């Protein structure tokens, strides 16, 4: 195993060990996402939900706010006891730090999706069995793009006095095209029963790759203890 890969594995393992022992982030984020689903479900009412337009939108609202809180929380431990300064002093390439943080965020977000989506499916009569693989593919690809941007901005705001409200201001407008493309795909899948098209998926993959590359390049410049 090459050195970069070993460093990457060690960083991800550190973040995951922290989360496994405290279980703070996942509990907080999953409950928040379920609350959002419940509140929006109550607000929309049964007729709106039956139209097929609402479920993807509600799911995405829950993912977005859960994600913003999750990215904020995974970066928070680095702020304590000079952890970030120590990390920067260690002979680790910054892109490895970025990719490790991104992987942690992605794993946590996928765990949140695994918890929240069945709840939403039950509450909204959202028939996941119709196209489970296409749904999983769409969400995983979208989450890569979302987590790429989220990890970048949570690192930017980490050493400042900003809290999660301005982090939402940074992440939400930037991820709008991704959310738009993803919800369109989901509506086509579940409301119209159309199979996922290669072109639509290609757009999502391209978004993910662009967000990933840009965030990875910019990350070099921004980490400061």
């Amino acid at each position, binding site marked *: 195993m090459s050195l970069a890969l070993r460093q990457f594995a060690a960083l991800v393992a550190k973040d995951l060990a922290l989360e496994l022992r405290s279980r703070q982030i996942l509990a907080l984020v999953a409950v928040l996402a379920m609350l959002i689903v419940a509140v929006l479900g109550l607000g929309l009412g049964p007729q709106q939900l039956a139209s097929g337009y609402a479920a993807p939108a509600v799911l995405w609202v829950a993912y977005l706010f859960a994600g913003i809180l999750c990215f904020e929380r995974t970066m928070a431990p680095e702020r304590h006891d000079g952890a970030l300064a120590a990390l920067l002093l260690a002979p680790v390439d910054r892109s490895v730090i970025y990719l490790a943080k991104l992987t942690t965020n992605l794993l946590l977000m996928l765990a949140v999706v695994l918890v929240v989506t069945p709840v939403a499916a039950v509450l909204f009569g959202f028939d996941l069995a119709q196209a489970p693989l296409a749904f999983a593919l769409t969400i995983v690809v979208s989450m890569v793009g979302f987590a790429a*941007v989220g990890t*970048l*901005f949570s690192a*930017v*705001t980490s*050493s*400042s*006095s*900003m809290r999660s409200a*301005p982090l939402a*201001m*940074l992440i*939400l*407008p*930037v991820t*709008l*095209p*991704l959310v*738009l*493309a993803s919800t*369109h795909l989901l509506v086509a899948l579940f409301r119209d029963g159309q199979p996922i098209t290669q072109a*639509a998926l290609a*757009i999502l993959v*391209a*978004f993910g790759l*662009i*967000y990933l590359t*840009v*965030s990875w390049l*910019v990350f070099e*410049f*921004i980490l*400061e203890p």
Partner: protein
Amino acid sequence: MTRARPNLVALYWLATLALAATALVVVFTWTPTEQTMGPVQKIFYLHFPVAINALLACTVNFIACLAYLFTRRQRWDDLAAAAAGVAVLLCSIVLLTGMIWGREAWGHWWTWSPRLTFSLLLWLLYAAYLVIRSSFDDPTRRAMVCAVYGIVAFIDVPLVYFSVRLMPDIHPSSVSLEPAMWWTVLIFAVPVTMLAAGLIAAHYRLGRSHNLAQPDAASPRAVTSAGAIE
């Protein structure tokens, strides 16, 4: 030198005003009225150059953000802030003139067509930039966060363009106009571009003088070196 500059600035704004007045006279007297749309079509002559200039202002913001990230000079951050403010202003004008036109052409102030959604998302992206700026106290931190955001936001613009194309479109994608109408567009483009450039320059100079008035905030390095001497 110090006296000549305000005169030049005044001259610049007077010229812009005169050209804008000329453009208005031209559009209502010389330019032919469009057959199907009638007089409301004349709003296009403002709408189109402003839209182009809004994108140019976003480009200036992007270049300034990149330059800040590489050089860490406060002046690039000031330029980025000035360009973002002007981009939001121009984008608002594009949205408003577009809505007036849409009300006449389609009977609605707003439809979720790709071009309209694109303009709205563009406005949101740069309005968020301005909001983010005001939520920081530390100027170096603010400049850093805003530079990163500005870069990602600009790269987002083509993505917004592609994602909104998933929606059904009723906005005209290409315009076929008579030569006289294209001349009117050009006559409008000059004062609009001058207005955009002038506003960016004025806003930039205001930001510069504001930062230079607070030297400790503008250059934290000076503070740390002074602290080291003590």
